[in-house]
């Protein structure tokens, strides 16, 4: 029984195809196209889901489930949709479910690293001078001050740099709402930065924000 035997030759026909073509073939039950879809989307999905769950192993489990869902629900996919957006929507929803599930157990906000105070570069003048790992730790800590919607919007639009339209489709809201949440999230992050890490906050910037600055 030739289960799961992977043929690199047959894969070649899909490597140059557009996402929409690959997805159309997946809808028709083409396993090789599904393989190609997994190869293309694993990296970006793992990236986004890890950012949301803050747990790489958990993200990996979720990404596997995402692909299984994609296969099982492939006939519900409307060709007018963007395959990327559709898949990301499944992934983000699963990841958010997982985080909420943890939150109900009051474990989501587990200590995010008391190590954050022992940064490697205590003399750094700006966040840009810190190592990526340290920036990630600070972001995680500051994100706790955001509302749930602000947090997801900021992760998708502000960190992953997805467009407002795409984020809106993923989260099921308007692009203008995404931009509003993004603006509010940045403002809140700057305030939290001033409060928790004043050494990296720009002087005067957040006091203006708090005074009612608007777009």
């Amino acid at each position, binding site marked *: *029984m*030739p*289960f*799961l*035997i*992977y043929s690199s030759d047959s894969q070649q026909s899909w490597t140059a195809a557009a996402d929409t073509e690959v997805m159309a073939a997946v809808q028709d039950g083409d*396993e090789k196209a*599904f*393989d190609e879809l*997994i*190869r293309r989307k*694993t*990296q970006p999905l*793992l*990236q986004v889901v*890890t950012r949301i769950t803050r747990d*790489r*192993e*958990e993200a*990996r*489990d979720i*990404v*596997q*489930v995402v*692909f*299984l869902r994609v*296969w*099982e629900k492939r006939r519900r996919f409307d060709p007018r949709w963007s395959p990327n957006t559709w898949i990301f929507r499944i992934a983000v929803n699963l990841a958010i479910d*997982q985080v909420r*599930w*943890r939150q109900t*157990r009051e*474990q989501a906000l587990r200590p995010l690293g008391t190590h954050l105070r022992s940064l490697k570069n205590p003399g750094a*003048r*700006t*966040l*840009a*001078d*810190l190592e*990526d790992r340290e*920036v990630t730790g600070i*972001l995680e800590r500051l994100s706790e001050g955001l509302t749930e919607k602000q947090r997801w919007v*900021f992760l998708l*639009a*502000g*960190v992953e*740099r997805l*467009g407002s339209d795409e984020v809106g489709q993923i989260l099921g809201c308007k692009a203008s709402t995404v*931009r509003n949440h*993004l*603006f509010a999230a*940045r403002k809140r*992050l*700057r305030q939290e*930065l001033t409060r928790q890490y004043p050494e*990296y*906050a*720009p002087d005067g*910037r957040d006091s203006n924000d708090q005074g009612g600055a608007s*777009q």
Partner: protein
Amino acid sequence: MSCARWRDLLLDESVDELAEAQRDEFLLHLQVCSSCRRAAAEADPTVVFSLLPEERIEEGEVEEIRRTVQAMRRVRALEASWSRRGLAAGAFAAMVMLAIVLIPERPLRQSPEEVPFAGAVGVGSGLVSVPRVSSGGSVVELQVELARSARVSDLSTSPTLHRVSRLEVIASTGELVDRNLGNGYRIRFSLAREMPPSGPILKGFQLLQPDGQGEVALFSADLKPVPDSPLILSVTPAAEEEEQLWLLLTYSADDPATLLSEN
């Protein structure tokens, strides 16, 4: 665009107000220009969060995920096939019931006869032998120390689909603490030995659902039995203060290969 132009632009507008193409170009510039990056961070530190690098992922990891997903898909297809034949409920599915009991001072190894579960075997934080499962189920009890894995050997049930129906976490007082798989507890199955050269063996995987249901599967790539494949079962406890756990594993299993041949 020059550095000076970028900085002027940043004074006029926040990064989110830039057109998408311009924003991407701007962030790309920040990744290579340290002086502009510093200037941007001074103007708005949150810009730095947009410069975080992508998660590093190995090619082998993508391939492993691909294999696992395809295997999950195959198993689902088999399940569906059995459902259509009206045999799914108890025949193909297997059940794993895991309970983790916090009993810090009860070394079961010294008195295995006290274990109130049929089929209980030796217990310890190290290697544990588990009897072969044919059908009907079996129970093992493992002592799992914090941040360590319990190793189950001689679990010759591969290829096997285990279905986790429930996780019960019971305190040493006997009080039920939790009854959902994945609520802070991570149960992970994986093979203890190297993959044989004859063909890949899929690692176990876990499917978590919001209602607490989950599945753990372990089988070879061609759904053929893999005799004497050691299995590692690792449990990550939720509460860091828990020093010692008792893991109660109840499972039954059927062989998809057998089902397949009957098809």
